[in-house]
């Protein structure tokens, strides 16, 4: 999962341990938060509530999955939430226009894939920094969504589009939505692709040291482009998740989705310089934020202090990363 290596039979230092398994830090934070909130409130440790917390993290968690891929290649996507909002509007408006749910869903995903291809092409062919490309796209897509919807929210009545949020079953007493199931499958799938396939190794290599990746025969541009396309698919699915949560496509929604997804990825132990990070870590990162919000809310902590806590945690996570790197070198 990471490129840090151990020499011989040395016992790993704490720093190396964190570098080897970037998900351990956020997992510990998650565990601590869950224990603290379970002890300090009557309402947190409740199967329904735990299910809710996961459902509340799904949209950002899915966006963060695509963001992880892009950050692994030392890129960043500031436009993912805007693309997602546009996709929710496309899906909703198509359904209102009489198109069947399945086609609306697919065309919405096609739109985000096209956006991914455009981003990827600008990054690989014209060598623009991903930050600039997606900053521009953020503005373009936000405006496009508002123009497309004439500023109006579009309620979604289609069963398929709402399906991820409305259909649920019980697993060991815990209410599980299909959205949760799908997210889990996506995380597993991407975990497999990143750790067990040549493509995954290329993604890490490209992010870690693009020049040596190129010299060792990896098609750097093609790998990066593929990352943006896969991330596009994921953003499209995030749009489906979003409609499952709130069956109402709103051009003003998810204004902080891009930053929330970056927060989850960084809390999950990924490096913004590329090449380091994991799908499992991102999952933990997304969950930590949702657990904090839910637990602090139930403790009656003001939302602004919750923002303070989340921000502080983020800076703390990067400090751990720095510390680990220094230990290594």
């Amino acid at each position: 999962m990471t490129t840090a290596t151990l020499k011989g039979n040395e016992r790993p230092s704490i720093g190396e341990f964190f570098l080897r398994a970037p998900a351990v830090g956020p997992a510990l934070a998650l565990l601590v938060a869950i224990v603290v909130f379970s002890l300090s409130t009557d309402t947190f440790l409740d199967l329904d509530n735990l299910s809710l917390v996961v459902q509340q993290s799904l949209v950002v968690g899915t966006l963060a999955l695509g963001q992880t891929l892009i950050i692994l290649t030392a890129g960043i996507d500031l436009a993912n939430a805007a693309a997602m909002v546009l996709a929710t509007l496309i899906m909703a408006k198509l359904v209102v226009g009489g198109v069947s749910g399945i086609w609306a869903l697919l065309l919405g995903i096609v739109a985000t894939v096209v956006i991914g291809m455009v981003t990827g092409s600008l990054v690989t062919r014209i060598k623009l920094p991903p930050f600039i490309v997606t900053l521009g796209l953020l503005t373009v897509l936000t405006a496009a969504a508002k123009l497309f919807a004439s500023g109006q929210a579009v309620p979604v009545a289609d069963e398929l589009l709402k399906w991820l949020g409305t259909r649920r079953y019980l697993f060991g007493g815990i209410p599980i939505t299909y959205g949760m199931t799908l997210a889990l499958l996506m995380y597993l799938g991407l975990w497999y692709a990143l750790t067990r396939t040549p493509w995954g190794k290329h993604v890490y290599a490209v992010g870690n040291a693009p020049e040596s990746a190129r010299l060792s025969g990896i098609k750097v541009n093609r790998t990066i482009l593929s990352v943006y396309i896969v991330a596009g698919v994921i953003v499209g699915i995030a749009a489906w998740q979003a409609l499952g949560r709130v069956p109402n496509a709103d051009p003003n929604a998810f204004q902080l989705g891009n930053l929330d997804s970056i927060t989850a990825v960084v809390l999950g132990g990924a490096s913004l310089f590329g090449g380091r990070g994991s799908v499992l870590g991102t999952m933990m990162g997304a969950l930590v934020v949702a657990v904090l919000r839910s637990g602090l809310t139930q403790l009656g902590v003001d939302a602004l202090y919750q923002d303070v806590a989340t921000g502080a945690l983020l800076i703390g996570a990067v400090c751990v990363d720095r510390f680990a790197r220094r230990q290594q070198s």
Partner: protein
Amino acid sequence: MRQRSLAALALAAALTVTTAGCTVERHWGGGSNAGGGGKAKVGLVTKTDTNPYFVELRAAAKAAAEANGAEFSALAGQFDGDNDGQVRAIENLMQQGANTILITPSSSTGVLDAIDRARKAGVLVIALDTATEPDTAVDATFATDNFEAGRQQGAYVKAALNGKPPKLFMVDGTAGSTVDTQRHTGFLKGIGLTDASPEIKGKTPANGDQSLAQQGVENLLQRTTDINAVYTMNEPMGRGTYAALQARGLVNQIVMGSIDGGCEGVKNVRDGQYAATVMQFPKKMAEQGVLAAVEYAKTGKKPSGFVNTGSAVITDKPIPGVESQDTKWGLENCWGTK
């Protein structure tokens, strides 16, 4: 008390599971949230928690809850339009066992699904300030009649023009938002125009933001300065508009109106920045909402329909035929920091 409600919740959950099998779709908070014969637990969900209007609403609700022995907790979205955050807030309040939720919906359709879930679990849901579409999605709505508030502003501006044909700029809020649309059409009705009237010399949306309003009006003034009336959808935008007009030396030839009734806005009227503002009463919305919650907890009786909490024209230049209050009255009844 909390322990007991948790036990009740667990029991209710267990009952639901055993009676309905184990692949049921069920609603959260099952059974513990209904009113009747108990203590009021009131949750308030506002659009954001930083806007002074919502701060006032929250403070008033909190005070009313304390005065009536109700439990109170307030949550909010992170920005205007944060439906996801409001849904999360509703879920968390239900999780905490709220039996009444007062909500200022971020979008009139955005959170209906979550509201529906809450109502099915027995929670009384009252929309404050902003109506839902359809309005039957909630049990009741306690709000300003925004169309009427706009109409009052329009009627005042028309009267103040004293028979001169209007040459109007319109500074709108967020395109497509319900409140914006209602105030806008109300204003046009009050002044006697339609959206297609040539008397409208320019329109700019400014998202309720002062600096955007200033920019927008500056740009409109590049096109023409031959105007005599300005509609602003709220007071921060009124201030931005004033700055733009003042820079071009146009202040004295223009009748400008606004809506909100924040204390700063009333002071703006007193200081002559605009001729009139239409005051709304968030405190009333919050207090009536909490009282309804207390009633519901005691008796299980739910309010229904649209309850207009009223609006009043505030101006120091009263015009015969238009009912208004002066800024002294305005400062006594305004919301925000006095």
